């Protein structure tokens, strides 16, 4: 390639990069939702901010909504029953300050569950949602051991009456999907909706990559924390107030 052409291409590439990467400026506005036949886009990264100052102690609206949405039910064994989101009550022993917060799959950008999965069943979807493809999950449970958040459950028993949009079955591992079936239809996850309906509004869901999205704006303005940030997993669920 001659020198003139090479210079032209370098400058053109730089120009395109500047135009498209300037913060808050887009040549083409992003579409609000995707159509059914469109694959998810890596330009989106779904995430959640948990405002623990608004999360009410003893309230389990998010957990109940999740159980209802995905048809989760137990067998009376709390240690092994499926649980996609759980409420935790924390207390600082020195000061006595208490926090209430939901713990769920943190949808890491570099998830340990995906690293250890021997079949490729655990994967990160292009829009950042961490999922289990149960068609290829062999139920080895390596991911459950690898997850620092204890976010995954193994199904030990045969299940009945699954919801049509939430297939689940014996011998596979499962966890929060950010309500992927709802997100694909431009709805927010069931827990977020339930938290708002309960009047707390402690959960904010949206596109972390879109600077105009309320979740991205809040995360820019508020000091937020990643649980176990020492592991550098780049979680999509961030906490405020802990």
């Amino acid at each position: 390639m001659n020198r003139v052409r090479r210079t032209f291409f370098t400058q053109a590439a730089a120009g395109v990069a500047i135009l498209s990467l300037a913060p808050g400026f887009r040549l083409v506005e992003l579409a609000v939702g995707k159509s059914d036949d469109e694959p998810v886009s890596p330009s989106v990264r779904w995430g959640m901010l948990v405002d623990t100052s608004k999360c009410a102690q003893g309230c389990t609206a998010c957990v109940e909504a999740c159980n209802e949405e995905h048809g989760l039910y137990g067998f009376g064994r709390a240690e092994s029953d499926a649980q996609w989101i759980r409420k935790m009550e924390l207390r600082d022993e020195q000061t006595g300050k208490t926090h209430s917060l939901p713990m769920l799959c943190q949808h890491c950008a570099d998830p340990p569950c995906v690293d250890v999965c021997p079949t490729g069943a655990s994967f990160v979807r292009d829009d950042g949602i961490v999922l289990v493809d149960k068609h290829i999950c062999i139920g080895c449970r390596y991911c459950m051991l690898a997850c620092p958040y204890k976010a995954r459950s193994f199904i030990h028993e045969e299940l009945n009456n699954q919801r049509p949009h939430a297939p689940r079955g014996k011998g596979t591992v499962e966890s929060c999907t950010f309500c992927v079936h709802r997100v694909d239809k431009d709805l927010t996850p069931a827990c977020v909706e339930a938290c708002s309906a309960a009047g707390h509004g402690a959960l904010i869901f949206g596109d972390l990559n879109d600077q105009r999205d309320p979740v991205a704006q809040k995360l820019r303005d508020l000091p937020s924390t990643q649980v176990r940030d020492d592991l550098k997993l780049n979680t999509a669920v961030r906490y405020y107030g802990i």
Partner: protein
Amino acid sequence: MSSTACSRLIACLILTLFIWLEQAGAQISGNSRAAELEQCVEPTALMRKSHMDFLKHQRDLTVHQGIRTRKHSLLECIACHAEKAANGEFIAINAQGQFCQGCHAAVAVSMDCFQCHAARPEPSAMLTNHISITTADLDSAR
């Protein structure tokens, strides 16, 4: 048995298999929505032979890429082929004599789909707009 005779026998068995399949071919009857339609989303012969390939292809697209088109979706198969009992409730599609089970029992092929997937449509408000495939939709899909 010589290898020629053996291969002839296998060929015969394969040929008769198609006849069995035709005979076993699910009887679309009863009060399912499918019973009112002339043809499925693909020609009947193709559906009988390749429905599992369509489903497998679609499942990978849906789980990994979030593509949720309705034409080859298991949810739509069930929505359209499920029959209703006298009390108005849907009968599981893998129950004895129902659409999936009828044919799979005849050809002795087990179905794993319904270990995880719901075998009947949900008459909830959330799904009513989703399971409304019509004759016009099928025409446009062809």
